[in-house]
């Protein structure tokens, strides 16, 4: 059974703050989401930040379309989801993200990838297909395993999404999944 070490829980809190600060610094002011296990500590931080709007969705497919609409309306939007959400939302990522050409930052808990510290038989299959699916959708991505230069990496991702007029995925694993 997985148990949370108090020290690592504290570390996660610090990383969560850093992640949310990175999103803010990159101009993200709108986040639609479905919660998951690895990064969920960012949710109350975003919710309590008056500079960011947090919108719950019922499906990742919907979260992507809501973010696309918000972007067209002048927001700098992100979608926070588990990597399984990539499979669920691949249709809306393709048609609103790629075909229509709308930048969206994807903040993804990368379950089941090699750097996932909680990887198990439950997640390994899910993780194995994430990158091939992103590549099939021609969505650029970066795997983040620690908080080093996190702010600038998030800023780079948002800049790339805007330049490409397309979604860009940040996959969080390593220390983010402890």
């Amino acid at each position, binding site marked *: 059974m997985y148990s949370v070490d108090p020290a690592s829980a504290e570390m996660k809190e610090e990383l969560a703050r850093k992640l949310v600060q990175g999103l803010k610094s990159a*101009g993200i002011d*709108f986040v*639609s989401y479905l919660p998951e296990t690895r990064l969920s500590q960012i949710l109350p931080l975003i919710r309590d930040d008056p500079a960011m*709007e947090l*919108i*719950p*969705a*019922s*499906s990742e*497919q*919907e979260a*992507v*379309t*809501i*973010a*696309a*609409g*918000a*972007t*067209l*309306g*002048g*927001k*700098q*939007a992100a979608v926070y989801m588990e990597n399984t959400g990539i499979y669920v939302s691949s*249709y*809306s990522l393709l*048609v*609103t993200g790629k*075909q*229509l*050409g*709308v*930048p969206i930052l994807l903040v993804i808990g990368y379950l089941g990838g090699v750097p996932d510290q909680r990887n198990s038989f439950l997640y390994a299959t899910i993780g194995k297909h994430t990158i091939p699916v992103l590549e099939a959708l021609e969505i650029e991505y970066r795997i983040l395993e620690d908080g080093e230069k996190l702010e600038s990496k998030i800023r780079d991702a948002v800049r790339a*999404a*805007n*330049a490409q*007029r397309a979604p860009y995925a940040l996959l969080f694993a390593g220390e983010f999944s402890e």
Partner: protein
Amino acid sequence: MIRRECLELLAGKMTDQLVVTSQSGQRIEWSHFSQHEGNLLLGMMGCAIGVATGLALALPHRKVIALDSDGSVLLSLFNLTTLGNLRPKNLVVYVFDNGVYSGSRISYPTATAGNTDLAAMARSAGISNACTISELGDFKTKGIDALTSKELGFFVCKVEESLLHREIPRPKTDLAENKYTFVRYLERTEGKAIPFVGRG
């Protein structure tokens, strides 16, 4: 009731509203009746309500309209529960429900031709102002009144299957062209830059 009659009525009421359409005959009919720069003619099913919701949340002072179809809403039923809880006051959804997958060319029936009642589902999901409209007279009152109401509206407009849209030239603007026209219109009318358009 014929969808085209409803759209013609609606088009006559447009001022500065933003209209998002899904992929169906109504996209073609709407683009025929309204060439407004605030039209976003999405060429895909199951996305219009989500995109319209995002617009409505980003621009709470603008009225946003989603024009959708039964087949498209059935693809994205999760929108009902999200709208039922968010209840954006500036959003009106019109679902033109002809009970068939008309684009399939064999008019294969949708679930709404059977036992499914989309307006009842919307109400159960938390959208208080959701109802079925079957007569043009009711569309003129309930449907059109929603344009000035400060409440989320969800109207399932029961229409006969009509192939009139096949007699209308399809819109010539491609998706990217339409997107930029829409975004530039928003920049002009909102007096602010849309971030992703950026600098060259």
